[in-house]
């Protein structure tokens, strides 16, 4: 193997002048986490609205929500990021477009919005599946007590639906973290981008990518453990009433 290993590379100063290569990687880690969490919040909010809309007894709303899901699911994430980052500033009113182009951290905001909406379609589908998995007697019982439709969703359906979909939501969150790496194409300096920079400056390819790999695996581990704790706290003792 004609590769020169140098595990001390992490403590050497990077040519960017901001510290060591390790600092560079941690900076990337920070941006990965910031983008993932922000995008995830957006995905949960938008996805919940769309997911609920898909189950409401109003046909036009259902159709709109279904169209939303199809659009965001059938276009690759990379293309969606390009649309938010390159195309949006060009098609909005001129002044707004200029402001978008001059925004500092434009890549970050585009990534959050892009990954957020991409993921929201998947969250919507999962929430819809969770809601329709409930026995039809549950909303009926709520209705029979005089609860309005909004109250039935708020107090009867959603609290249980969200608990049901915690496992697939966890996977979706892990996917979100992975997907932020695609944003390196629009200049987001997240973890994979920094590992690539480190490789380009120092030629220590395998050290750089091993570090990135380890960090991603650590994030995964933390998320999985945290979600398991959350699941345990929220578990409903026993099953649904009835058979």
């Amino acid at each position, binding site marked *: *193997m*004609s*590769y020169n290993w140098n595990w001390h590379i992490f403590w050497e100063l990077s040519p960017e002048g901001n510290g060591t290569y390790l600092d560079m990687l941690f900076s990337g880690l920070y941006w990965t986490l910031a983008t993932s969490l922000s995008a995830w919040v957006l995905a949960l909010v938008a996805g919940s609205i769309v997911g609920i809309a898909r189950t409401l007894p109003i046909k036009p709303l259902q159709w709109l929500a279904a169209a939303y899901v*199809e*659009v965001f*699911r*059938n*276009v*690759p*994430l*990379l*293309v*969606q990021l*390009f*649309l938010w980052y*390159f*195309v949006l500033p*060009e*098609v*909005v*009113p001129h002044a707004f477009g200029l402001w978008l182009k001059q925004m500092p951290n434009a890549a970050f905001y585009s990534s959050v919005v892009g990954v957020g909406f991409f993921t929201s379609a998947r969250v919507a589908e999962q929430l819809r599946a969770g809601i329709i998995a409930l026995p039809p007697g549950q909303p009926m019982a709520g209705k029979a007590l005089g609860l309005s439709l909004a109250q039935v969703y708020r107090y009867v359906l959603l609290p249980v639906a969200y608990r049901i979909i915690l496992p697939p939501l966890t996977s979706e969150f*892990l996917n979100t*973290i*992975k*997907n*932020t*790496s*695609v944003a*390196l*194409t629009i200049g987001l300096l997240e973890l*994979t981008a920094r*590992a*690539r920079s480190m*490789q380009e400056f120092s030629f220590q*390819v*395998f050290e750089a*990518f091993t570090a*990135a*790999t380890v960090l*991603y*695996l650590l994030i*995964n581990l933390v998320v999985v453990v945290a979600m398991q704790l959350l699941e345990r706290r929220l578990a409903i003792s026993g099953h649904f009433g009835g058979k």
Partner: protein
Amino acid sequence: MFGNLDFDVIRRSAGYLFFDGMSFTLTLTALTTVIGGAIGTVLAMIRLAPIPVLPKVVTAYVNLTRSLPLVLLIFWFYFLVPYVGQWLTGADRPVHVGAFSSSLITFTMVEAAYFCEIMRAGIQSIAASQTNAARAVGLSYLQAMRYVVLPQAFRNMVPLLLTQTIVMFQDTSLVYVVSITDFLGAASKVAQRDGRLVEMYLFAAVVYFCFSFAASMLVRHLQRRNEFVH
């Protein structure tokens, strides 16, 4: 707002976009699906086989691959494959492997990991009684797999496998990070050469949407037909 857009650029570059770009995307998707699918099925069988060590290795590989971003995996294989080639062929420097070959290997190995999980679920969903019945008439483990379990597992999992293929079709756009010209790459090149970002990226989005949406409608249709048959 839509004032100085020139959608004619799409018509002018259509040949390049589709003959060069899209054919590459479709070829890569097809190769990845077939080869990755075959490898993935083998991996699934290994995971479920009652032998020591190897199933654990496969499990570790599958979990690792599914935990890492595809972009990172593309870089990994891009740099690793030449060294593996050097080790395999005994050369004295890393073997030069083009971006295309290494991305083909990347996608194939990633697809194999995802296919492995789908096929594993499929195989496990076929009741153990089927395997037992097959063994009882004298078939070996491999024969039971080949003639009894796998055909049924495969048929049950077709919707999931097709959906995974559609996902892979979209994921191939990531070859962008190693500067390969697939459909998106072609659109991007035209966009930058002619300064027509809006038109080209919008067009790319529409094309990807049409292909993926049509394919997913087909899958849904197949699923519905399957339900009636059962």
